């Protein structure tokens, strides 16, 4: 019990003394998660919306595919990306193995299905309400997609939060393609795994506390925004 308390004490010290190593890891984690979320949204939000509003042969198969991909094991994704970008792989010439770029790609593969599936579900509900109006107004598909995404903006925040949660907490894929190299590809989750195995619980706990704080703050902001939007009947 004392060991645990000591670890907590040390972890708070690391956070409040603005430990340089800790913040380097934290910043890289946020950077990798942010960019993987950003690029995933860029692809996943329009695709999810398109799947929600367009009826075509095979649409259900595509949706089932993305729903299934939501449960992709990160280590499998890590392994596949590793094989593709390793020196002997087809994209070896890019030279991105053990770089943050590789980590972003691996995380995108994990996040895109989440963004696509949840966006499709979210937009489908609004589509039921809007479809007659949009068809009556002869709204082109690309403008409809933008309108749906804009009107679902507060609900889409939840989708993005789910994607961000997956990215920031992910360890299996980034450890394979990033290599957990100090000052280069070491992020919060890989450090927690490493430090725990070394018995250095204080740093691991400090990062754990920060991870939880990030989740708490983002959820708090999101819920505040949604309450405000609900009052204005925007959700």
């Amino acid at each position: 019990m004392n060991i645990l308390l000591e670890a907590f004490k040390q972890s708070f010290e690391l956070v409040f003394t603005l430990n340089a190593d800790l913040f380097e890891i934290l910043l890289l984690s946020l950077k990798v998660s942010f960019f993987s979320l950003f690029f995933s949204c860029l692809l996943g939000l329009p695709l999810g919306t398109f799947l929600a509003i367009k009826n075509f042969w095979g649409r259900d198969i595509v949706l089932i595919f993305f729903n299934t991909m939501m449960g992709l094991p990160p280590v499998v994704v890590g392994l596949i990306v590793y094989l593709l970008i390793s020196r002997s792989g087809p994209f070896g010439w890019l030279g991105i193995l053990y770089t943050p770029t590789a980590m972003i790609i691996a995380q995108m593969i994990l996040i895109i299905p989440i963004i696509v599936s949840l966006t499709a579900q979210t937009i489908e509900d609004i589509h039921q309400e809007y479809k007659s109006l949009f068809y009556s107004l002869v709204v082109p598909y690309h403008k409809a997609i933008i309108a749906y995404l804009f009107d679902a903006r507060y609900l889409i925040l939840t989708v993005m939060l789910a994607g961000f949660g997956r990215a920031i907490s992910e360890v299996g894929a980034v450890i394979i393609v990033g290599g957990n190299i100090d000052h280069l590809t070491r992020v919060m989750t890989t450090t927690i795994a490493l430090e725990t195995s070394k018995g250095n619980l204080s740093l691991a706990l400090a990062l754990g506390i920060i991870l939880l704080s990030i989740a708490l703050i983002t959820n708090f902001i999101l819920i505040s925004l949604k309450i405000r939007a609900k009052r204005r009947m925007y959700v």
Partner: protein
Amino acid sequence: MSKKTFVGPHDLTPIQFKDLSVILGQKIILDKINCKIKSNSITAVLGPNGAGKSIFLQTINGLFSIQSGRLNFNLMEINQEIRKQQAMVFQNPVLLRRTVIANLQFISNLRNKESNRLLKKILSKVGLEGYEKKPARLLSGGEKQRLSMARALIINPNLLLLDEPTANLDPYSLKLIEDLVLEENSIGKTIIFTTHDMSQAKRLATDVIFLNKGKVLEQTISKTFFKSPKTLEAQKYINGEILI
């Protein structure tokens, strides 16, 4: 006062139905409809619940596909350009999850890119001045319907389709919408509306189409319809009797 003729890219009228049928699932909703809607007219589509009035309007608007027969707009088949010259006001107004002005800006950006000043002018026309920043879905039923009407007016349509536009509205909203209908017609636009309000149909309509069980039982000028309806069904409907 003589009517001005609306000069649009295409004149959509007369609208002609020839043996037109619409089937949803196994059910025949519109059954071999034959009728003609005149240019610059205000046509009331009357009939009991389930007669097919809303589907009739939505078919004109291209929301339902035609199983058989033909629908011609000034001898042209329905296409995107024709649909763009129509505006439909639904019985239950569908408003975007935005402010009142943003709802109008959406249509304006889509079509004619009207200035914000003109949008505000249209808002004032429908009695919604000062509501620009209000979330549209927080409006009352009457206000929502008036906003829906404003949205239709922004399109500056050749043909205005109104599906029970004044159902459950207060007298102020009702009068405002009726005045707008007459004003739009006075500048040469063709209007087709559905209603259960006989006095409203008498006040507004120049022509009447009476539907029952998906069939057109009567088409005549309004005065004749209300004075001496030809069919027993129409007589019963006007007298408020149940149609079986």
